[in-house]
Structures are given as structure tokens and as C-alpha cells.
């Protein structure tokens, strides 16, 4: 009897906590800011400037979401999360949305009960090697020693790749990216493998980046994107459509500089009108103001602008757009129509 009572109480408590989570949008509006989970530090994606403000590719998307909801990109608080704490932070309601270069996988979507809302960066695992080794393709890596972060999906991808190609390798297990840089530079391994964006960022910090090459093969799919809790649909819609709005803005040539004039001027393009809230009641459908997208775009510009500023070819990270180019320009970045 007692056990039964306890169980009922526990179920009630669970229902209560789920119920409390279900209306994240209301919670967010009530508290007046978004609690966003970001990485504790990943070059170009999330870092702090000398004044202690968070900045970076992922951070700007979070700020744009805050701008869409509150009209203020600073109505946001950041929770730095590690690879170990990120999912718990989201599941327990400590954060409202996780923007932490997290790979969209089936088990995370289904088993951990999160909803991925799109992809803001298509990454993939690559290899970096010294130029004087004379290797031009990953298929020539037979017998190489490889620096590899333990306990990551990259470790599994590496094993798969070498087995599929009938090659052998000698792993040098390392714990962090910083350690990997040191090991690789000290010649403890021939090859360093991790996400291609990470490789580019790492290479950019070398004193002689021209002596290292990133091999052309990408051996895995790593779609990185934002996620919220299951069952949080109204809130998830907002996060999803802020991301889509920034992509559409790039398609339509709307930038941080011209968004105001675009919104006021008599543009011909009906999709721009809908996006910027001149026509239709799309903001209302989302539960936001009509000009939510204007605020979001003003935060850091459209997708392309954010990319160029934080990780693009003119930055120290120096990533090419590659897959992350718009679908009209040879990439796979494709937002559903705004109507």
C-alpha cells in the first residue's frame, strides 16, 4: 500500500515536472530571458571576449533567438556546458535550448528524448597530416599513428573507416583538443583526426600552418544543430524558425545593414514581406511580435554574415562554406519556404 502511494506520488511529481516543462515559451516569457546552453569553449563557436561576454557562431544563433522573442539580443543568459553535462542540463530544465555543436543522431533524438530543430553547421570528421609526409589521401594512411579523442563518436568513426578500407592504425588516445595540438606538434602522432572545423581551427593556431594539410576525405556526417526537450513544440518552433529565418535572409540578400530598409521599403518579393512581418500574421502564429525576424537578423546578420564573421575564410579559423553554402550555390543549406 505504502509502495503504491509512493509510486503515485512519484508519478504525480513527474507529471508535474513535465507539465512545468511543457510550456517553456511561457516560462521564458515570464522570466524575461532565455537560458542558453553553449560549449565551455570551442574556437569560433563559443568563447568569451576580454569583457567576459559570450560570442561565437553558436552564441549568435542563441542571441538571435532571444532577439526574436524579446526584441533584445541581450535578454539571454549562457550556461557553459561540457560534453558530459549538456544533455542533463537540457533534460532537467536548467537550460531552455542547447546550441552546443551537438551532432544530431538517432539515439539522442529518440532515446534521450530531445528534438533537434535543424542544422546550423554541417561538419564531418577529417584528417590533418604534415605536408612533408607526402600523403594526399586518407586511403594512404595504412599503419599511421593517429591522435584521437577518447570516448567520442570520432573514435568509432575512425575504427569503422580503417576497417572498411582494410588498413591498420595505431591510436594515440588523448583527452582534449589542446592536448591533441601539443601531441601532434611534438610528433607523437602522424595524423590528428577530429571534426574538420576543429582541424581547421587547430591548424590556424600553428606557427607554420602551411606545412600541414587537411586531407580531402570526410569520413563521417556530423550535422550540428540546436535542440530542445521533447514535447516542447511551441518553443521548438520558435528556435527552428529563427534558424530558418536567418538562412532565408541570406537567400534573399537581407543583411543586418539593410534589414530595416527592406522592412520599410516597398519590396516586391512577397516572401521577404512575409519574413519581415510586413505581410501576414506569421509572428502571431509563433506567438511573437510581427517583426521578430527583423530583430533576429539585426543581431548578427544573416546566416552567411554570422558564418563569415566567426568561422569564415577571413577569420583565423578559415573555414570554407563547403556543404554549408546555400543550396542555390552548391551547398545543402536549405530552409523550408516561409509561408
Amino acid at each position: 500500500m505504502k509502495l503504491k502511494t509512493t509510486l503515485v506520488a512519484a508519478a504525480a511529481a513527474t507529471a508535474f515536472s513535465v507539465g512545468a516543462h511543457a510550456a517553456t515559451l511561457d516560462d521564458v516569457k515570464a522570466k524575461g530571458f532565455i537560458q542558453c546552453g553553449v560549449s565551455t569553449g570551442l574556437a569560433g563557436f563559443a568563447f568569451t571576449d576580454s569583457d567576459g561576454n559570450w560570442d561565437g557562431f553558436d552564441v549568435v544563433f542563441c542571441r538571435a533567438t532571444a532577439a526574436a522573442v524579446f526584441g533584445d539580443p541581450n535578454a539571454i543568459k549562457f550556461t557553459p556546458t561540457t560534453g558530459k553535462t549538456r544533455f542533463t542540463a537540457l533534460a532537467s530544465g536548467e537550460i531552455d535550448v542547447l546550441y552546443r555543436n551537438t551532432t544530431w543522431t538517432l539515439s539522442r533524438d529518440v532515446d534521450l528524448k530531445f528534438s533537434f530543430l535543424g542544422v546550423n553547421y554541417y561538419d564531418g570528421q577529417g584528417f590533418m597530416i604534415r605536408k612533408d609526409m607526402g600523403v594526399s589521401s586518407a586511403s594512404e594512411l595504412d599503419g599511421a599513428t593517429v591522435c584521437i579523442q577518447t570516448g567520442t563518436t570520432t573514435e568509432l568513426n575512425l575504427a569503422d573507416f580503417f576497417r572498411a578500407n582494410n588498413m591498420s592504425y595505431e591510436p594515440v588516445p588523448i583527452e582534449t583538443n589542446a592536448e591533441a595540438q601539443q601531441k601532434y606538434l611534438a610528433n607523437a602522432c602522424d595524423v590528428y583526426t577530429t571534426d574538420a572545423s576543429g582541424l581547421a581551427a587547430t591548424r590556424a593556431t600553428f606557427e607554420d600552418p602551411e606545412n600541414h594539410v587537411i586531407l580531402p576525405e570526410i569520413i563521417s556526417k556530423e550535422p550540428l544543430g540546436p535542440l530542445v526537450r521533447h514535447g516542447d513544440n511551441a518553443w521548438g518552433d520558435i528556435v527552428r524558425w529563427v534558424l530558418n529565418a536567418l538562412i532565408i535572409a541570406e537567400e534573399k540578400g537581407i543583411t543586418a545593414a539593410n534589414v530595416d530598409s527592406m522592412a520599410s521599403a516597398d519590396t516586391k518579393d512577397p516572401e521577404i514581406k512575409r519574413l519581415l512581418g510586413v505581410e501576414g500574421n506569421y509572428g502571431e502564429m509563433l506567438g511573437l511580435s510581427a517583426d521578430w525576424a527583423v530583430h533576429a537578423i539585426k543581431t548578427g546578420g544573416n546566416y552567411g554574415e554570422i558564418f563569415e564573421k566567426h568561422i569564415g575564410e577571413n577569420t583565423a579559423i578559415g573555414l570554407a562554406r563547403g556543404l554549408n553554402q546555400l543550396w542555390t550555390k552548391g551547398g545543402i543549406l536549405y530552409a523550408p519556404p516561409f509561408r
Partner: protein
Amino acid sequence: MAGEKPVAFVAERQIPPSPPPVRTGGALGWARDNLFSGVFNTVATLLSLAFVAYILAMVVPWLFLDSVWNASSLQGCREVDDGACLAVINERFLQFVFGFYPEELRWRPILAFVLLFVAIWPALFSSAPRKLLIFSALYPLLAYWLIWGGSLWGPVGAVVGIAIGWACIRFLPSLVRGRLDEGLAFLAAVGAGILATALWWLFGVIAFEEALDGVVAIGLEPVESARLGGFLLSTIIGVSGIAGSLPIGIVLALGRQSNLILIKAVCVGFIEFIRGVPLITLLFVAWLLLSYFLPPGTEFDLILRVVIMVTAFASAYMAEVIRGGLAGLPTGQYEAADSLGLDYWKSMRLIILPQALKISIPGIVNTFIGLFKDTTLVIIIGLLDPVGLLQPIRADQNWNGIVWELYGFIALFFFIFCFAMSRYSMYLERNLDVGHR
């Protein structure tokens, strides 16, 4: 006058002492005795010298001659010179000290830090005025108020809670005198006191704070925990852990020796459980399980949770260190205390503990130093202590790729703190050495 003739072989006065031979005195003699006293020692000395010279030849130019203090990025450093890029520390120094603490409010943690020395002065040096101890007792709440801000009445409410508990322990036994066994009455009073304090803290403080805020609102601008970081965070966790673990450790150690089975069981259970679990696990519990268990929206500060866990962890170790000290005393001391007719608390306070703690000093300081260094583990749960700050700083495009400078800087900070603690413990041992050996 012939008899007065001095005898040639009798010295009239003492010959002044001549300086020792060069080979045995002075620096040369010292070096000969200590460094070159045999073939093995000579070889070892030369090898060590060569090693030291080798290291210095690498470090000195890197750190002093070729280092760059003013640059805005790692590339900028490399353009100027090829030594250490200390510009990163130059630029991020305040971030390392305060984390993201609002700039215009930084006088508050600084003031709290200065007052910390006033507060620990009477605890560290017997020459300090004893009345300062009252300030020391109030310091934790004052520091909390200074660092986190908010209404003054919150901390005052907490003090009231302690006063209520103390009043229960002090006055309840006399109310039931004669009707209950004295020890039992005392135990009941302690229980009632703890319960009353806890109830007050849980339910009374907020009402108290709101009521008084309505009358006179005195407060500082609140600063949320997420903005604390860097050495400020390490110091908060380290100092509260150290300050909390010693008294709790003493109580646990005494409890473990108690004849009352319940108290003994609780103490042994606590100590063995905490010692059997790694600190990281406890931090995860503080961070993660509590966020599941507490109702959503509950404000239970993460740093406070971490401080509680770290204190509990250090207390268990401290209890065992002090138990070692208690066990090291000859039984005669306990019997002597009893024969003087002292009750339990008096005998502990006047006879046993002063001696036991003196024996335990090296172990106690050892635990303190270990605890202080363990504060870096909070990086696992996403708190940005100095080591945690490395990641966002190194993720900045300007500074990506810097390793040695930043780690060296943090190591220096920890070294200064730990070395100071260890020197103090040696001073204390010398001072308390009353010659039982």
C-alpha cells in the same frame, strides 16, 4: 731584575683565534662539505647543475627576454618575438581574477578578500585581539552579502536563525532540569536547536527579509552565480571548504569516538560514505541529481551546492586526520582530565583537543591543500574556475593555440596559495612545540 725576565716559551697572552682554513669555512667550505664531499656527490652535483642550467637556458629567454606583453592576438605576439605570449595574461588578467563579475562592482569581492585576512587573523595568530573572533564568526555572511549582493536582511535573517538555535541549546536544558537526565536533556536541546534553525532558514528567513525590506531596504545590487569565476570562485570554494571542514571534522572525529551508539553510527556512516565516493561523483550529484529532484524553478544556487559538497568531502577526511591526533594522545591525558573533575566538553576543549590538534597540524594542512587544489574539479560541471576559463579564452580566435603561458600562470597562483599554507603550518608547529620530544 733577572728573575723578572720573561720566560721565552710562556705565552703572555692568548693567541687570537685565526680564521679557519679556507677549505673548511665560508662558502667554499660549505660547498666542499655539502656538494663535493665524494666522487658520487661531485658527479651528482655537476649533473644537477647542468640540468638546472639547461632548464634555465630554455625558460629564462622564453619567459623574460623574448616574451611579449603587449599584443592583441597570438599572431601579433609571434610577429613581435618568439618567446612567451604573456599578452594573453595581460589582457585577460581581470577575467582570471573575477570571472565575469560586473566591472563596476568589483570592489565588493576585493573588500571581501581584504576582510578575509582580518577575519582569519585571530584564528591564525595568537597575538591578535580576541574580540576580533566575533567579526570572524560573522564574516561568512558578510562575505556572502558582499559577493552576491541582495538585501542585507537575508544574511541578518540567517544570523537570527543561528541565534535561535543557540538559544534553544542554551536555555532548553534548564527548563526541563530535574525531570530529565542531564545528558539526554542536552541532546534533546541540541536536536531542538538544529531543528528550529533549519525551520527558520527554510520558512522564516524569506518572510523576515521581506518584512524588513518593507521597513528599511538596505541592499547591494545582486550578482548572480553565473558571473562568478576565476580565482574568485576557487577562493570562495576553497576558503569556505577549509573554514567549514575543520569544525565539522572535529565534531565528526569526536562523534566517532562517542559512547552513544546513534551518534557514533551517524558519524561513521557519514565519514565512510563520503570517503568511499570520489569528489567528482559528489559534484555531479550536486549539479545533476539535485536539478532532477528539486522541483523545477527551485532556486538553489549551484555554487552553494558545490560548497556544501566540497565541505562535506573535506570534513570526512579531516575527521580521520583528527581521529589520528586523538588516538595519538596517551590514555593518561584522558584520565587526567577526568580526575580533575572536568565534564566531557571541558576536558575536550581544555586538555584533549589542543594536544590532538597540535599533533594533527601537518595532516590538517595537507587536507586543506588537497581541498584547495581539488576546487579545479568544478570544471567538470561547467563552472568557470581558472582552469575552466582556459577553454573559452583559448577558443577566442585571437588566443587559440596558447597553452604553456596560461597553465603556467594558473600553476603559479595555486603554488603561491599552497606554499603559503604550508609555510604557515610550519610556523605553527614551531610555535606550538612545547618540547614533548
